[in-house]
């Protein structure tokens, strides 16, 4: 403790290396530019539009994950939740013609209910988050299976497809991108400028101190897991609208839980909690989408795609660790 007492005060102002958003924008632009030189097709508006669209679902889910990690938790169950929402909404639409607004309601209700379950298990029963969500990972995956009875969603009503691909009111920007912008703005405002979000960060910094400061830590935990569930299910709905498909392994098959953690961390959120970067998460997801698309344009054999992802995680997190190391 004597070491802490006399540690020289660090410069409180963030240097450029701390502006993770800028770094991500720079590397994304640089990689896109580099690929564009090799294959100009990469830089077409059409392609860039899809690079962005492809990142939307992961971004939405990862924003929920960002909130959870900011609170020093982790949510592995986002993947099956996303799948469950995609499956339930998709099947209801496909077989019962559920209108789109109804699907939005269904998705959000599922997310809130099951996310709250995660929160209660963590906050009230004191089960470590990684174990809680490992358990609910199996549970929610099972629910998807039981509900679908092995069928799949392979076509969605035109309203859904339009929602997933076109812009509203003839706007050139696809709706999923607008949804993402909205969610990002909401998360950015919440974490940066609302009492709730600051409380989340306080819990992530030091739950005991937050409790002593009068924050209802258990309630905040439950709310954050509920939000994470909500966003995972919103992601599932956007997924089923965008791709027009859902299977029993939607979400889990693509390891969305791991990808969402990865982009949150690459985006600059600390795994130890207490610091989050909403914009960074979205940009990291965009970066991932850029890199994965670029690999195709560069004709890299597909088997190495996931290796690229792994390297990206290690390099980015390594950059973040060095600066966090000063923290006792």
């Amino acid at each position, binding site marked *: 403790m004597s070491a802490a007492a006399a540690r020289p005060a660090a410069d409180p102002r963030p240097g450029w290396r701390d502006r993770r958003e800028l770094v991500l924008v720079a590397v994304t632009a640089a990689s896109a530019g580099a690929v564009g030189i090799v294959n100009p097709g990469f830089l077409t508006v059409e392609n860039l539009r899809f690079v962005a669209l492809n990142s939307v679902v992961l971004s939405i889910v990862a924003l929920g994950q960002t909130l959870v990690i900011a609170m020093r938790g982790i949510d592995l169950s986002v993947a099956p939740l996303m799948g469950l929402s995609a499956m339930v909404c998709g099947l209801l639409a496909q077989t019962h013609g559920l209108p789109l607004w109804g699907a939005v309601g269904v998705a959000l209700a599922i997310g809130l209910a099951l996310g709250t379950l995660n929160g209660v298990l963590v906050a009230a029963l004191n089960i470590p988050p990684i174990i809680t969500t490992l358990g609910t990972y199996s549970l929610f995956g099972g629910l998807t299976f039981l509900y679908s009875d092995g069928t799949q969603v392979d076509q969605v009503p035109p309203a859904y497809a339009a929602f997933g691909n076109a812009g509203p009111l003839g706007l050139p920007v696809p709706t999923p991108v607008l949804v993402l912008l909205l969610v990002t703005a909401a998360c950015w405002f919440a974490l940066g400028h609302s009492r709730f979000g600051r409380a989340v960060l306080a819990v992530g910094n030091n739950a005991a101190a937050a409790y002593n400061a009068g924050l209802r830590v258990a309630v905040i935990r439950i709310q954050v897991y509920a939000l994470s569930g909500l966003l995972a299910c919103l992601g599932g709905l956007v997924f089923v609208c965008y791709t027009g498909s859902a299977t029993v392994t939607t979400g889990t098959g693509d390891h969305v839980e791991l990808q969402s953690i990865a982009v949150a*961390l690459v985006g600059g959120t600390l795994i130890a909690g207490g610091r989050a970067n909403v914009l960074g998460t979205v940009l990291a997801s965009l970066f991932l989408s850029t890199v994965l698309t670029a690999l195709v344009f560069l004709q890299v054999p597909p088997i190495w795609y996931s290796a690229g992802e792994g390297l990206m995680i290690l390099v980015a997190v390594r950059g973040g660790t060095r600066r966090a190391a000063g923290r006792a």
Partner: protein
Amino acid sequence: MDMRAPAAADAATPRDGRRLPVGGWELALTALLVAVVAGFGAAAPGFYAGPASLLGLTENFLPFGLVALGLSLVILTGGIDLSVGAVASLSAVLAAQLWSRFGVDIWAASALGVAIGALLGLLNAAVILRLGIEPLIATLGTSFLYGSAAVAAAGAAPPSGFPASFTAVGTGTLGSLGPLAGLVPIQLALFAALAVLFSALVARSPFGRVLVMVGYSPDAARYSGIRTGRVLATAYAVSGAMASLAGLVLASYYDAVRPDMGDVLLLTAITMVVLGGISIFGGEGTVAGVVVSVLVLGFLRQGMLIAGFSDMVTTMLTGAILLASIAAKNLFNRRGTGLANQIWATIRRPEPPRANPN
């Protein structure tokens, strides 16, 4: 006062909790195991068709147990290894390719495979220690890398059709050792031997002692002169070696390799370790608990499948058991702060001794 003089053992030789690594948790799990086996034996026709078939069921899940044993060491240090699945695939694929493309003897190739697994584990440790990255993230990253490498190494037609002596590991019994031994699958014998080894390792070996110490308190371990980096590296290497052993047993069991064959191992193995009573925060828990939990979850799954439940229902039940057991454990654990825990404490423990000067 000469502190170095050997003193006779205290007259009232105190019991040593770690000599017999069995506590309430392990006993509860054992009861659950008995209930599962007896329950399915009675209710699911085909589950019990003689001792040989019952023991034979273990062939279907013991590779998970092998991974769980290795993973136990890592989790005891307070770390985690998400790369076990990819390590299992990669090392099994590499061993199989050594055998099929380069004509290496299958047993030599297997030995090399285990060595490769240990090396991959060491690489994990290097990423964690040298780059200072949290184990969760480090092994997440390396699992992507190893997975890609496994796909690349496997090619379009991964090797299959191993020599019969090799496939016997996955599906054969110890029949040649006598009629009774014929009941015992080779996998089970392998697992039992390793279970005893790991149990002794953790409970009574110098390595196990420092492992637990590092798990409880890395700082205190370091100040006690323990080279914590080496301990961690060893734990991750053993985890890697055990994962690759599991991969090889799977290869033998399926008589083939695939680059994604290890993927299923991870979540189940973590569940086994945690249900076995090893704390995700490190230090606490026994290998005996993990061994029993491997059997509980394994027989449960086999029983459910034989009773006609689908794969997914079985997985759901596993998840529910994990949550319920950890919740129950939290309520009653001495270290917990829950209400039930306090009640439990007053019932169970006399007043802890306080050292007040008279």
